C-alpha cells in the first residue's frame, strides 16, 4: 500500500501560497462542478478551469507521472460513464454500433450513440476537473501550513488537531499494517495468496483486530503526550511559523475568483444560446 499523493517540499510559487488560497481553489472547483453542465457545448467552461488546475500542477513542478496516476485511477469511472451514456443517451440519433434491440422509452439501450459517447466524455472531463484540485492541495501544503490554514478559518482547535494528526498518523498505520501482515505471514496466513472472496471472508479479521488494539494502546500514549503539553487549555496556541496573508496571496486569490467568474459567465452565455 502506498500513498499516491503526499506532500513534497519544493520552492515554488504554489508551495509558498497561503493554504487558504489553495483551499479557495478546491472550493471553487467543487462549486463549478456541482452546477448543471448537461451539453457538450459547456466544454469550454470545464476546459478553462482544468487548464488553470493543470497550470498550477505545472507551476508546482509536480511530475507528469502523478497526473497520469490520477487519470489511471479514474479510468474505470471514465470508461463506465462513456459506455453507459453511449448506450442510454436519449437525445442521440447517430448510432455507432447496434449490439441488440432493447427499447426503453424513446431509446434503444442496445445501440451505442455518438452523442452519448461525447456526453460521457464531458462527464469524465467534469470528474477529472473535480479530482485535479485536491492532489494539488495535498502535494503542496505541509501539515503545519494546513493546521495554520484551518485555524485561520476559525475551525475549533480540537478539530484542526484531529485532522492534521490523523493525516500524520497514516504513515504509522502503514507501518503497523505491514508489521501485522508480516507477523501473520510467519504464521502461514498470507493475505496476498487469497482470492477476493476468501479475503473478504477471512483475511481482515486477523489483521484488523490486532491493528485496532495496537492503535488504541498507541492512542493512550498520544493522549498523555497531548495532556502533558497542555493541549486543551483555554486560549489560542502559538505558532512555530507565522503565516501571513501577503499581497501575492491576495492577487492569486483574486485571479482564481476571476477565472471562476469567467467560467460562470461562459456557462450562462452557453445556456442562453441553448435556449
Amino acid at each position, binding site marked *: 500500500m502506498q*500513498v499516491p499523493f503526499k506532500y513534497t517540499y519544493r520552492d515554488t510559487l504554489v508551495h509558498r501560497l497561503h493554504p487558504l488560497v489553495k483551499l479557495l481553489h478546491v472550493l471553487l472547483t467543487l462549486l463549478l462542478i456541482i452546477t448543471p453542465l448537461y451539453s457538450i457545448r459547456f466544454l469550454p467552461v470545464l476546459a478553462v478551469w482544468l487548464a488553470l488546475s493543470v497550470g498550477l500542477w505545472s507551476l508546482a513542478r509536480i511530475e507528469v507521472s502523478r497526473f497520469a496516476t490520477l487519470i489511471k485511477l479514474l479510468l474505470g469511472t471514465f470508461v463506465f460513464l462513456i459506455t453507459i451514456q453511449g448506450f442510454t443517451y436519449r437525445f442521440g440519433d447517430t448510432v455507432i454500433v447496434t449490439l441488440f434491440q432493447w427499447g426503453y422509452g424513446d431509446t434503444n439501450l442496445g445501440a451505442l450513440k455518438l452523442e452519448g459517447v461525447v456526453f460521457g466524455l464531458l462527464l469524465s472531463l467534469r470528474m477529472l476537473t473535480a479530482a485535479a484540485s485536491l492532489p494539488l492541495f*495535498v502535494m503542496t501544503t505541509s501539515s503545519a501550513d494546513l493546521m495554520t490554514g484551518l485555524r485561520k478559518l476559525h475551525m475549533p482547535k480540537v478539530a484542526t488537531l484531529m485532522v492534521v494528526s490523523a493525516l500524520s*498518523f497514516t504513515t504509522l498505520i502503514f507501518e503497523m499494517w505491514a508489521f501485522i501482515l508480516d507477523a501473520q505471514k510467519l504464521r502461514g496466513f498470507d493475505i496476498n495468496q487469497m482470492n477476493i472472496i476468501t479475503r473478504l471472508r477471512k483475511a481482515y479479521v486477523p489483521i484488523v483486530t490486532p491493528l485496532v488494539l495496537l492503535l488504541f494502546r498507541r492512542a493512550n500514549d498520544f493522549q498523555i503526550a497531548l495532556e502533558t503539553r497542555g493541549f486543551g487549555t483555554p486560549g489560542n496556541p502559538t505558532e512555530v511559523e507565522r503565516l501571513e496573508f501577503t499581497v501575492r496571496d491576495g492577487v492569486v486569490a483574486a485571479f482564481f475568483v476571476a477565472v471562476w467568474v469567467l467560467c460562470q459567465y461562459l456557462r450562462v452565455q452557453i445556456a442562453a444560446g441553448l435556449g
Partner: protein
Amino acid sequence: MSEVKSSGGMRIGGASIAWVTLYGALCGVTALIPFFPYVGGGGYLPLLCAFTALAPIILGPVAGVVSALIGSVVGMLIAPAAFPLGLLDAILVGTLPAVFMAMMLNAYKRSWFLAAVATCIVLGVVGMFFPFWVPGASAGFAKPENPLVYWLLMAVYWLLPLIVIVSPVARTLIPKWTQGTDRKFKYVGFLIAAVTAFFMWFIPLCVPYWYMFNYSPAVATAAEIAYLWWLPALGAVVTIIAVPLVEALKRSGLPKVPGALW
C-alpha cells in the same frame, strides 16, 4: 488569584480525542484499498466504508461519527480517486455509513429513534421523486418506463429500514443481541443493523450522482437491483469484522468508551 478553567475538549462523546484521531487515521488509510466495485459509477468504494460503519460500534455513536468524518477527510486527501467530488464524497461515501449505523444501534433511545424515522421519511421522499420527477424533464431527465417497479425497488431502501426501525427488531432485539454475550445472536444483531443501515445509505449514495451525471432511469433501476445483493454483502463483511473485534476489545483491558458495544 487566577481562575483555573477546565479544558473540557479532550473527549468527544466520552472517547478520548486520541482514540478518535487514530481510528480516523485508520479509516483514512483504508480509503486506499478498493473494496467493492461502485455499482452505477464505474469506480470503487474503498474499505473505508466498512471501517466507518464499524466506528459507532467501537467508539460509541458520537465519537464514531466524528471519527468517520475525520477518516473521510483524511481519505479524501490521501486517496482523491476514491472521492472525486471531494468533501461531498467524503460525507456521502465516508461519513454516512457511520451515521446510519449509529442510528440503527441506538434506535432504542428516543432521540435516535426520532432521528432515524425522520431520516427514513426524508430519504423516501427524495428517493421516490428525485431526479426523474423533480426536476424531471426541465433538467433533461426522463421518467422511468415502469414507475411502479422503480418505486417498489426504491421502497426497499427507505420503507424496509423504516419498518425495521419502528418494529421491535430495532427497538428491542438489536440492542439486546448486540449488547448481549451470546455470540450467535451478536452476529445476527450486527448483521441486521449493518444491512439496514447500508440500505438507508443507498439513496444518499446514489441519487446525487444520478442527478450530477445525468443517469438514465434504466441505469438507476439497474443500480437499485444490483445493490439488493451488494449492500447485504457489505453488511456481512462488517459483521464478520465487528464481532471478533468487539470480543477482543472486551478482553483487552482498555478503558471502555461510553456507548460503545464492548
